């Protein structure tokens, strides 16, 4: 994540706020009209505006707290690079991967039993296959590296 300077963050925060407020007001103004495409675009503008607002507000807060406590940056760096934290993160990810795999299979079966459209079941099966293939690919890649 790029860390812009303070002024850039404020400018992007205001742009985000302006875009989302304009889109909300436009949506209210156009509420009685039937313009589905425009409404979708306005919804997208609200989402993007709020995203811009939120991420820049977070960066401003982050920079503010770093200025308040100079030692905080070092603490955060230590915490991020701490080998136990990294190991815990990797273990948590691998356990969540293991937990989600049977859920995928179950969902494929449920989709098939529910007789949902074939493309939905196949899409889910494809996602499951990509997931498994990615695991095999990374296993082989890491095996060569180590």
């Amino acid at each position, binding site marked *: 994540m790029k860390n812009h300077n303070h002024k850039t963050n404020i400018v992007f925060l205001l742009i985000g706020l302006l875009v989302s407020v304009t889109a909300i007001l436009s949506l209210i103004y156009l509420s009685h009209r039937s313009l589905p495409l425009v409404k979708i675009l306005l919804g997208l503008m609200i989402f993007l505006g709020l995203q811009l607002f939120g991420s820049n507000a977070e960066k401003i807060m982050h920079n503010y707290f770093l200025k308040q406590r100079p030692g905080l940056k070092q603490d955060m760096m*230590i*915490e991020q*690079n*701490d*080998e*136990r*934290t990294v190991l815990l993160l990797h273990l948590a990810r691998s356990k969540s991967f293991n937990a989600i795999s049977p859920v995928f299979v179950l969902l494929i079966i449920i989709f098939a039993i529910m007789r949902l459209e074939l493309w939905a079941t196949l899409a889910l099966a494809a996602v499951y296959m990509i997931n498994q293939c990615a695991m095999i690919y990374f296993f082989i890649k890491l095996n060569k590296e180590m």
Partner: protein
Amino acid sequence: MKNRLEELRKQHALLQEELALALKVSRQTICSLENGRYNPSLRLALKLGRFFKLPVEQIFLYDEEDLNSEKSQP
């Protein structure tokens, strides 16, 4: 794996926070190491050895219990 980390830290009159800061790890890592809940990487073990000016095998004690627990693992 058992270790003498707590004993050595106390000998050097250090707090967990101070040792953690010196080794650039979190305090929780030192706490877990002392309680034997976490085995360090080779890198961290060597850093500890260098910090206390002791060989790694004098800090971490590889005993029969560890050998038995390894044998019982599939």
